[in-house]
Each structure stands twice: as structure tokens, then as C-alpha cells.
């Protein structure tokens, strides 16, 4: 997804503007000339400078015939778009359901779904998803003492 430089520039301008505006709420200390707002303001200034250069460049590219947004050819194939979104969606699903379901059931389900979507045979996807989930759970939860959510299995584990 290529975006015209001018669009990037405008986004950066908004971002830098917000950042500088937020620094006006930072406390200042009497007798101290250089407070916590100084460094972010300098960075914001630098970003604004870059943003202006990008906007100029983006306009030149527009005149040369570049679109605002240029999508790679695969965006017109729904299957590939789902393949692209599958992994971020899996992470979102993990974020929303991890506490309720627990690591083991959720990780197994997500792995299996991704394997099958990417075209793996169920006969191979099932055992790999099961073994991988248990191995990762063993390594991180038992060996490294990372508090992976237990969810449904709270009483059992």
C-alpha cells in the first residue's frame, strides 16, 4: 500500500501538531529554563520540517501522475487480502479472548485456523497445532514462569 508523500506529510503534520499541543500542558519548574517540554517540541519541529518537504515532494509526484494511494496487485484478490489480514486478526482474537478462554485452547484454535486457511492438510495441521501449543505452553509457562492466561483450564492445570 503506497501512499502519496503528501498524505504522509499531512499525517505527520497532525501528529507533530498534537504532540506540541500536548507539551503545553506539561508542568514547568520556576527557575528552570529547560523543562520536560523542550525535547518533544524540538522533535515536533523536526517532524514538521520533514512533513513540509514530503508534502512538496508529494505534490510533484501527483503532477507526474501518481495516485493518492497505490495498492499492490494482490489487493484485488480477496483470498490474498484475507491471507494478509489473517495474522493480525488472529492477534486481535488472542487479545480479546485470551483471558476468557486461556492460552491452550485459544492458541490451539488459532494455529489450526491459520494452518487450514493457508492450505495445510487437516491430518498434518491437527497434530502440529496440538504439539506446538503444548510445547510453547510448557516452555514459557512451566520453564520461564510467564503467567500465560489459564482461562477455561483454571481449575484443571
Amino acid at each position, binding site marked *: *500500500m*503506497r*501512499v502519496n508523500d503528501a498524505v*504522509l506529510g499531512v499525517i*505527520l503534520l497532525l501528529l507533530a501538531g498534537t*504532540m506540541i499541543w*500536548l*507539551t503545553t500542558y*506539561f508542568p514547568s*519548574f520556576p527557575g*528552570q*529554563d*529547560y*523543562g*520536560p517540554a*523542550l*525535547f*518533544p517540541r524540538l*522533535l*515536533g519541529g*523536526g*517532524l514538521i520540517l*520533514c*512533513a513540509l518537504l*514530503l508534502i512538496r*515532494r508529494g505534490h*510533484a509526484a501527483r503532477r*507526474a501522475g501518481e495516485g493518492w494511494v497505490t495498492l*499492490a496487485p*494482490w489487493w484485488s484478490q480477496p483470498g490474498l487480502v484475507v*491471507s*494478509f489480514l*489473517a*495474522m*493480525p486478526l*488472529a*492477534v*486481535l482474537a*488472542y*487479545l480479546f479472548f485470551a483471558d476468557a478462554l486461556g*492460552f491452550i485452547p485459544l*492458541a490451539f484454535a*488459532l*494455529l489450526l485456523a*491459520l*494452518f487450514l486457511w*493457508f*492450505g*495445510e492438510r487437516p491430518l*498434518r*495441521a491437527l497434530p*502440529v497445532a496440538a504439539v*506446538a*501449543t503444548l510445547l510453547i505452553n510448557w*516452555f*514459557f509457562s512451566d520453564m*520461564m514462569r*510467564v*503467567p*500465560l492466561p489459564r482461562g477455561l483450564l483454571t481449575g484443571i492445570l
Partner: protein
Amino acid sequence: MDAVLTAFGLVFDPSVLLVILAAAVFGMFVGAMPGLTATMATALLVPVTFFMDPVPSLGAIVTATAMAIFAGDIPAAMLRMPGTPASAAYADESFLMTKKGQLDLNLGVNVVFSALGGIVGVAFLVLCAPALAELALNFSSFEYFWLACLGLTCAVFIGSGNPVKGFVSLLFGLSVGCIGIDPAAGVPRFTFGNVDLMSGVNFIAVMIGAFAVSELLRGGVELHQVGHVVVPQVGNVFRGVAGVLRRYWLNFVRGSLLGTLIGALPGAGADIAAWVSYAVSKRFSRTPEKFGTGHLEGIVEATSSNNSAVAGAWIPALVFGIPGDSITAIVIGVLYMKGMNPGPTVFTENPQFIYAVFIIFVLANVVMIPLGWAAIKSMKQVLRIPRTLLLPLILLFCVVGAFAMTNSSYGIVLMLIFGVLGWFMEENGIPVAPMILGLVLGEMLEQNFMTSMIKADGAWLAFFERPIAGSLGVMTLLVWLLMLVRGARTALRRPAAA
């Protein structure tokens, strides 16, 4: 001397050696797998090494990266698919050699010269780092401020073809680094009352996102474009390598030296070292017309160069706490997590750790030859692992790893945001490495800047009064001026061309 002996004791502990061996195998695998990079290997290792002692965790990172940079050469030669970006510079040349039936010699040269180049890099690390550390002990906030500025500027200057986008990436990284408690006054900034944001942005989680998840996003789309691959047969890879060393020793020496230097410059790592060395080799070759036809000369120089860069990058990381590439940026994070603040004081307070890193580096480059041989021989099996299984597995590993960094879903959120952002940046030609360097160095830069400002009390000349600070400052300003002039020249030339 005591510290050296302690270091030997720390490294040659059976459990540490086992960790190093496992990391070596892991590095070989990640490097040999096209689409997985050495930086990704490091980012994935951090959660695993999080709970280990400093020596095994640093050892794992050193070994895995050295192996991965070599192993990237194998699929480049066999299939014209560089395993890591560091092998991209000579992937075509290697593959042409394979087509001419010289695969064995090519792989032999790659493994032997990678190891030798790595050892040259380590030699410079061992020689230069302690001497520089001694010098750096006298540094004040002014020197560190300019050093960080110069380093970050170099990262933009070398690392990207487009300085404006490089600066955007850097400034954005520095801005993200401002989130959390401000290092000088202790005031929370941009936290919106959120407890997670108060602790700052965990940059290991960010790196897992920017370097691993963004690759996975690309990989998900390309999954079905990679057809079945045929791995050619490999014979005796070491035959004829000695002859190559006699013939091209100058290329080896030049490649290793240049690689170490480029590695030591902040922001440029093994991949850029390989590109530059390949170009230098062609420029000074007596037979430049042979380049691009399956010629060994450039491969010798570039493969030595990328491995020496791996060690070179550790010089500024250990001495000044300024990473030489994105791998050492992660290392700096690991050092902070282990309570060893990188900088010259580590050399006086914990010299045994420094010596242990040196020993592990030598060890890694020595075991590279037998392990590399094994990796070459088992390439068929490695490439048989279906990517349909591999990508989701890596994703799950990333999720758990990011979670482990904060012990909350905050790490996963960061990983997801920066994964998508990293993908978007790459699509738009904005380099990711300056952002990471900015994020890692932001606090140090600001702290030294604020301290210097308060000390100088408005007298700007104070930034140039001390001899080293003055020289560094002038150098930084010169690089900025050079960039401005270059930018202005292209801006003036463009309307004329259009």
C-alpha cells in the same frame, strides 16, 4: 587477568555451551530459511533468554546472529533466494556460479570466508573496544550528546536512499521514546493516565512487531507464490578453498576491514556492508567484466564483509551504548534488562562479561565451519518445512514473546501496532532501523541533552568547548550540512529534469 579467567569459567560451563549450541542451530535455521532474518532471530531469542544469566543470553544472541548471517548464503547460492538481506548483494553472482556447476566451491568459500571475516571483526572488537572504553571514561554529557547525534545522523545518512524519510523514521522513533516518565524531571509525558504507558514503550515488544510480525504480514501474501524448489546435490565443499584464499587474500582483508568499519557505524549493519564491499570489489578488480557472470572475487569480499560487520557493530554498542545495527539495538535492551548499563563503566565494573562476549564470538566463528557444513548438507530438510506451518508458529511465538516482555497484553498490543506500522513503513520506502535506534537511544540522547543544556545555561558554545565534544560536534554539523547541500542540489536539479 583474573577477569579473563573468570570469563573462561563463565563460558565453558556445560549449560552455557549447550545454550550456545542450541542458539547456533537456531541461527542456522532462521538464516537458511528465506524470509526470516537475523534481526528477527534476535528479537525472537530475547523472550527465551529473558530469564537466563547475562553470559548465556548474550552468548545465544552472538552465536545465533553470526550463524544466521552465514546461513543466508546457502539458499542464495542454491535457489537465488537470499536467506537474510545480508546475502542479497551477491545472491545473483552465487546463483550464476551454481549454474556453472560451481556450487560446492561457492558454498565452501562462503562458510570459510564468513568464519574468517567474523574472526577479523572480533579481533578489532577485542583490540579497539577496551581502548575506546578507556577514552570514553572521560566523556561528559557533551561528548555523549554529540556521539548520539552523530550516530543517529549516520543511521539516516547511510541506511536509506531517502534522507527525509530516514529522518521521519528517526524523529518518530525518538518521539515514541518520549512516552513515559521523562528522564530529567520525572514528569509523565503522553501517558494519558495509562499505567502501561507510564512504564514507557517496551522496545523489545516493538522490535518483535517491526522485525518479525511485519515480515509475517508480507509472508502471508507471498505464501502461495513460492513454488516447489529443487535443492541441488552438494559434494565436497572444502575442495579448492585454500587456492581461493591464496588468490583473493587481498579481497578478504579489504572486505573484512571495511565490514568491521561499516558494522561499527551506527545504523549500518551486515547487509549494507555486503553491498558496499561487493561494489568496492568490482571497482578495484582487475577483471570487472567478470562480475555478474558467476565470479568468485566479489563473493569472497562481500561474504567476509557481512560477517565482520556482525562483530564490528558490537564496538560502539559495548563502549558507548550506541548500537551499530538493529541487532545490537536489541542487545542494548538486553543489557539494560540484565542491569548492565552499556557504556565504558561495564569494562571496569564487569570486565568478565566483556571478555565472555569476546570468547563467545571467537567460539561462534570457529564452530561456524562444522555447523555450516552440517547446515549445507541438511538444506534439503530445512526447505521441506512448509511455510504454511512455519508462519503461524512464528506468529504464536511472537505473541507469547511480546506478552512475556511486559507480563500483560500491553506487549502484544505494542507488537501488533508496530508490526502493522513496520509493514506500512517498508511499503512506503521509510526505513525501520532509524525508528528503532531512535526509540532505543531517545532516553540517553535526551538525558545528555538536558544535562548539557542545564550545565551550559544558555551558552551554546559550551557544546564545543571540550576538545572531543568539539570535534564530534563539528563532524555532526558537517554531516548535516552535507545532507542539506545534497538535498538542495537534487531539489534544484529536479525541476530542470522535469
